């Protein structure tokens, strides 16, 4: 399994639960879940690049 795929699956599963637990309306939950997913992916990629330059 590729590392990126693992990270995507992880972010997806966690954001589903976070989205379902938070907020009150289905629309807000979807938006929040997508936001959490995007944050996971973005932070993961940024950290990956930072660590790439650190020996």
């Amino acid at each position: 399994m590729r590392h990126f795929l693992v990270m995507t699956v992880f972010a997806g599963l966690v954001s589903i639960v976070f989205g379902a637990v938070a907020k009150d309306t289905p629309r807000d939950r979807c938006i929040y879940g997508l936001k959490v997913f995007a944050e996971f992916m973005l932070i993961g990629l940024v950290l990956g690049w930072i660590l790439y330059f650190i020996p």
Partner: protein
Amino acid sequence: MVKTEKAIERVEPTPALAWLVGLAAWFIPGAGHLMTKHWVRALLMGGSVWLCFFLGLWMGGHMFSLSTGQGSSQLLQVPPMIANLGSGALYIVCYMLDIGFADDLVQAARATYEYGNTFLLIAGLLNYLNMLDAFDIAAGRKP
């Protein structure tokens, strides 16, 4: 004369069913939401925990228990064990069948070993969230 009014707080007792739902939600991921008839939530939240757990095992992850480690290092097993315990019956069954608890070097050498550990820990922690959510729903504190 100034009258002061005291706000009277009414604390409603938590119904016994809510505790049962919470316990069921912990023991079998998704069962709590099924009991409260929140089918979509049960599928999404319970399904996420089940998938996370089995992906963790498939990737060669390792679960924690007090039987591993000696002396003070045994104490270090407690926090991750609490996280793993969140998976409920999945953890207990694996413990009884000795699946995912073996400490062997071949498994630890796998590229996905650490990912597996993380998935197993997160499965338990996500199920704690599920449990609290199902409890709140059953107690009438959440729609």
